[in-house]
């Protein structure tokens, strides 16, 4: 049975200063409002814990990509240099990965860094949806220039009176309030 169409009300409050936005976020969160997201041209220090953004798991991702790179590099060099076609370079024909390890360290290191850096960057762009060619999701193009937008929806704040919220945000220094109503899919 299909559910009755439910409307999502979204409030976009625009600020012209990151400190004002940070103070406003602190104040309205203290009043029990949950902020869904903030769009900003640059990272705002100290905002994440205020609006309850979870700590990024990027470090774990980068560690895993790094370990992948290290294992692949060692596996590859073992196969090329020791197993498939044993090579005697610089009079060190021990044909053992462990005994010739110092010679393999620079490549392993470089490949670890390569995989960690590229893996991390690509994962970051994918998760953000900002790979080249992906449609932009910011609600207002001005947030890529010099404005900051705080997004609050009634999904996180059930039973919230949107008009009251708008007044509250204006009091906190928002220079512009845009309201949208979207029908939920």
């Amino acid at each position, binding site marked *: 049975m299909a559910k009755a169409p439910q409307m999502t009300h979204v409030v976009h409050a625009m600020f012209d200063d990151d400190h004002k936005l940070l103070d406003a976020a602190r104040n309205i969160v203290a009043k029990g409002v949950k902020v869904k997201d903030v769009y900003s041209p640059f990272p705002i*220090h*100290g905002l994440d814990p205020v609006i309850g953004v979870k700590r990024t798991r990027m*470090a774990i991702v980068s*560690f895993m990509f790094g370990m992948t790179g290290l294992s692949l590099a060692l596996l590859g060099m073992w196969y090329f240099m020791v197993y498939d076609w044993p090579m005697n370079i*610089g*009079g060190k024909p021990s044909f053992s990965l462990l005994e010739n390890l*110092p*010679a393999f*360290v*620079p490549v392993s290191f470089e490949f670890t860094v390569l995989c960690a850096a590229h893996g991390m960057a690509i994962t970051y762009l994918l998760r953000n949806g900002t790979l080249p060619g992906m449609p932009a999701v910011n609600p207002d193009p001005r947030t890529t220039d010099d404005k900051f937008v705080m997004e609050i929806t009634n999904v996180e704040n059930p039973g919230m009176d949107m008009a009251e919220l708008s007044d509250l945000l204006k009091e906190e220094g928002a220079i512009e309030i845009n309201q949208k109503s979207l029908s939920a899919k």
Partner: protein
Amino acid sequence: MNFVFSNKAKLATYVLIAIGALTLILGIFADTSDHYGRLWSNIMINGFYFFGIALGALFFYALSFATETAWTVMLRRVMEGVFSFIPVGAVVLAVVFIGATFHWNHIYHWMDDATISKYVAESSIGSDHPQYFSTAEKAEKAGETAVLNADYDPIIGNKTAYLNTPFFWIRTLVYFATFILFARWFRKRSLMEDENGSLDLHFKGYKRGALFLVLFAVFSSTLSWDWVMSIDTHWFSTLFGWYAFSGMWVSAMNVLAVLSLYLISKGYLKDINSSHIHDLGKWVFALSFLWTYLWFSQFMLIWYSNIPEEVTYFITRIEEYKVPFFGMMLINFAVPMLFLMSRDAKRNPKFLITVGTIIFIGHFMDVYMMITPGVLFEHWHFGWMEIGLFLGFTGLFVNRVLTALTKASLVPKQSPYLGESQHHSI
């Protein structure tokens, strides 16, 4: 607020100093190596290690000034406390060098006339003190019949233009004078700033910090050649200066981190927040990588090319010192890497203190591996003498540093960057 050096802590450092003094006295009777080589090299190791920590702190202090770093302002007095050890470390090193000059120890082979003189007076061969001459003309002038010296070492002999005792002393005294004068200058201006926080003083410090960095760039390399690399006189490495310097720097940051955490645990430095601790942890973490990178760069190129004149250094270390040599490298690399990798660990005092203690010993072993193999070759022992003297010098170092910390407010009262440092947030 001034730091109060509690009687309990004072007693602990005195106990350590007493252990060191006792080891020194017992060592004179127990050391059977040639010319007390083991005892002298231990004093040299500790002298260089703790002098290096103090010098690393002075370098970081100057670096903070020259780069106008704000967050380190809260740690300024702690750094001043650590680099106040420079004169004491210089005295310890000077004692070793005086011993070498007067042949009480044979740490520097190039100071021995027997290895660097081409000629010897025929009549004096076999006596206790043969007469050596660098040229045949000199022997003629002295009225002696000169013959070729059988002990002459051409590799060492050809280096005497740089490695000779008078020039060595000139360089050593220049280093000591430069470091002590800069340390005193910085300390004096820092205390003056407490009285009148003029911007003038700040910019003077900025210029003086930059000047120090220029001098330090040269001296940190040459002092490690003169004092440490010349112990293995036959061998040379162009990377050695950087390697020794990175060891000093990481040891200094490690001591700064642990010392700051100690002061915080005693209720001082209240304005230091977790971001400062995080930054100190980052330095220890990153510099451990720098040190390993330089250690490995030096090792791998020499190991790979396998040229006899270069590889001797590592052959002694691998054949006679395998476990401590590779052990200290692995510990100094793996422990900070694994335990300090995550952000939370760098902000956790328990992690920083545990890792700090391990690599404090690890970098002592690094200096041990720089010095001992060139002095004692295969006749080495690691036992009570090494541990006792290390504890003794640790006691002396902690005692001097904590005493220096009591002399001024632990937080600078006026600095243009004080506010920014208090609100440091990353």
